[in-house]
């Protein structure tokens, strides 16, 4: 079996052959030689990888390795920071994301994002989920909007807990519930991809595990890319893992580079790079 869906359900079958990175059929993102600068500071160097559809891909690595920066290039959120520039290409399906005719606002409609600290709007639960569909005019009447809100909350495994609290403040929910609300909010606009930037790092362990279970369900429909500094989470939840680290050049420039990108099982049982081994075994921070 060559594609990412492995035999025996969740278990990876024994693979022989060279470790040239995972083989991917349907790539949602194709990144080639991506380098990224904040002003004069090079945050990423020559990143090349392909991210497949309807899988969970984890980006791990020490602080400052550029994994969040990389994630944000996938939906052009870095555009909001003045003075950034990049080289190389980021393709979303066949589209060059940074092409001249591409509208970043529309990009973010198709590629959604969930952030580290749950950030619901200071509005009702309903209004939070309805915000996206409203601005994209996705519903022609209140009934349709109600349906979208309900479906999104169900998909985020939150409906049962809030169906009778839709008009209460979102800020009254617990941290884990707020984060699932943010996921529901992102789902409501009907994206293709959900990017998650350390979505569980502000949550307690039980809430974290519930988010992970939710991700297993979500990946049936959405492509998920998650940045996490919690290696065990990447090990549990993802099918592919990309390990980034900081390269220090002779003139003390610190730049993020991609060291290894492979099936998660492989990364955590027999990585092909020593640096990967050192990082996942906790011998190097």
């Amino acid at each position, binding site marked *: 079996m060559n594609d990412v869906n492995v035999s025996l359900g*969740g*278990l*990876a079958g024994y693979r022989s052959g060279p470790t040239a990175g995972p083989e991917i059929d349907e790539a949602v993102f194709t990144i080639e030689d991506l380098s990224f600068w904040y002003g004069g500071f090079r945050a990423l160097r020559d990143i090349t990888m392909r991210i497949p559809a309807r899988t969970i891909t984890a980006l791990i690595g020490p602080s400052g390795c550029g994994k969040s920066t990389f994630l944000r290039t996938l939906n052009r959120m870095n555009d909001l920071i003045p003075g950034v520039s990049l080289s190389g290409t980021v393709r979303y399906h066949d589209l060059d994301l940074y092409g001249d005719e591409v509208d970043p606002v529309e990009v973010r409609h198709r590629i959604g994002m969930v952030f580290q600290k749950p950030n619901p709007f200071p509005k009702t639960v309903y209004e939070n989920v309805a915000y996206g569909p409203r601005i994209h005019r996705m519903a022609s009447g209140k009934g349709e909007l109600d349906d979208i809100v309900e479906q999104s909350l169900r*998909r985020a495994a939150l409906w049962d807990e809030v169906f009778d609290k839709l008009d209460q403040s979102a800020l009254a929910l617990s941290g884990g519930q707020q984060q699932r609300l943010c996921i529901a909010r992102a789902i409501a606009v009907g994206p293709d991809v959900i990017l998650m930037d350390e979505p569980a790092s502000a949550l307690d362990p039980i809430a974290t595990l*519930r988010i992970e*279970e939710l991700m297993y369900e979500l990946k049936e429909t959405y492509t998920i890319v998650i940045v996490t500094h919690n290696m065990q989470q990447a*090990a549990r939840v993802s099918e592919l893992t990309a390990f980034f680290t900081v390269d220090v050049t002779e003139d003390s420039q610190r730049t993020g580079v991609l060291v290894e990108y492979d099936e*998660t099982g492989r990364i955590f*049982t027999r990585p092909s790079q020593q640096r990967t081994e050192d990082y996942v075994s906790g011998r190097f921070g």
Partner: protein
Amino acid sequence: MTDTGSGHDIRHHFDELLAEIRQGAVAMGSLVLENTRRLTDALLENDLDRARKVVAADDEVDALYISLEQGVFEVIARQQPVASDLRFLVAITRLLYEIERSGDLVVNAAKGLLMRDGYEIPQAIHGTMARTSALVADLFGKSIDVLADLDGSAAQWLDRLDDEIDDLVGELYTMIGRSSDDLGFDVGMELSRVTRYLERIADHAVNIGEHVAFIVTGSFPGHSSATTDEG
């Protein structure tokens, strides 16, 4: 879509993986059980075709063994199991070994038949051999059931069934010794080996019961002082 509002099923994915592993081990055991019975028929009826089938069927067992081992290894690496989950995964690797060895022993017996182009088991021994192999297959089958049910209390009665087999094995050795002139040296040796294989398979079956007891209770049966606790 599941509406997972309740909090008790938050490692659903992990539970599924563990269930898959257990089912895989049971499936592997069933294959070996089937092959054991196939071998018995081949031996008792001196059927070379069946013997060849026995050898061929073991490929599937080996393939399953390798992929299950790999799977267990990966689950341990990725899921950070503790407590009963960890005991299960560690014990399963030993269990898989017991099953795989049993499978290999069956193949050895079949190959022995094939290499000699078949041999007849004399009337005097036939009945006892039939009975012994039936009991061994039965015991092995029961051990796989114990695995499927995770029955922690089975180790003891599995051991008692083994005692009966050990008695029969003793009888067989005596009979083979007595018939050595009729059998010829080579076949006599081969039958001794086959008897030994049968005894070993029964031992593996008992071990399976002990590993299951460890999974369930955390202690090694028969070694009451050696538990997973300190002191």
